[in-house]
């Protein structure tokens, strides 16, 4: 099995994820194939407490499934539990 080619992804962090990472976002090179794998890497890197099940994810302003593939030069938003109103 060969190493997957790296993709460039822009991540945005909100609320508790912004606090825990200490940054509003970052642009990274990743070998993650799915959004699920991407979150596992970011969780490890920033010591995020949130399990994946409690998050939603959006790519380029559309809500997406964790099994969707990571696309090169996409904008990924990690969405912790919401509480509007």
């Amino acid at each position, binding site marked *: 099995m060969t190493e997957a080619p790296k993709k460039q992804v822009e991540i*945005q962090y*909100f*609320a*508790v994820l*912004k606090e*825990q990472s200490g940054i509003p976002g970052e642009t990274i090179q990743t070998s993650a194939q799915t959004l699920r794998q991407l979150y596992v890497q970011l969780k490890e890197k920033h*010591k*995020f*407490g*949130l*399990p994946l099940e*409690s998050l*939603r994810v*959006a790519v380029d*302003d559309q*809500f997406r499934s964790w099994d969707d593939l990571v696309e090169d030069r996409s904008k990924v*938003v990690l*969405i*912790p*539990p*919401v*509480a*509007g*109103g």
Partner: protein
Amino acid sequence: MFSIATESLDVNLLRLSLDDSRAGAYVSFEGWVRDHNEGRAVTRLEYEAHQSLAVSEAERILLEAKDRFGLIAFRCIHRVGTLAIGELAVWVGVTAAHRAEAFEGCRYIIDEIKARLPIWKKEHYADGSSQWVNCQSCSSPQHQLAAASGSGTP
């Protein structure tokens, strides 16, 4: 139809924007920052939103409500930033021919807005601490360990 505001809202203007001679019923909901939550004294709230995602999801919600309840007019505004006790955090206004549709449509909109919009709320308490609402499992592993030795649910 939906917008995010960084300044306080003029409810009177919002209400007037829904004026329609076909409408017999107007229902509005306002979420106010209250001085307590789950037994703790609250001093202020902080709201954060993902602007573009929140707008597109809210417009979906408003059109769902229009279709389901036959609303004539509908509008929703959500504040972001730091809000003091008593301030207006969210406003929903709808009109319909009759009151049943207006009540149900307004209720549907605020329920879905609260459940689906990428908006986050941080409560600041009188004792100086703060917490992201609905985020009991948000703390990092070290914090979870500390919490597990206490009496609270993780």
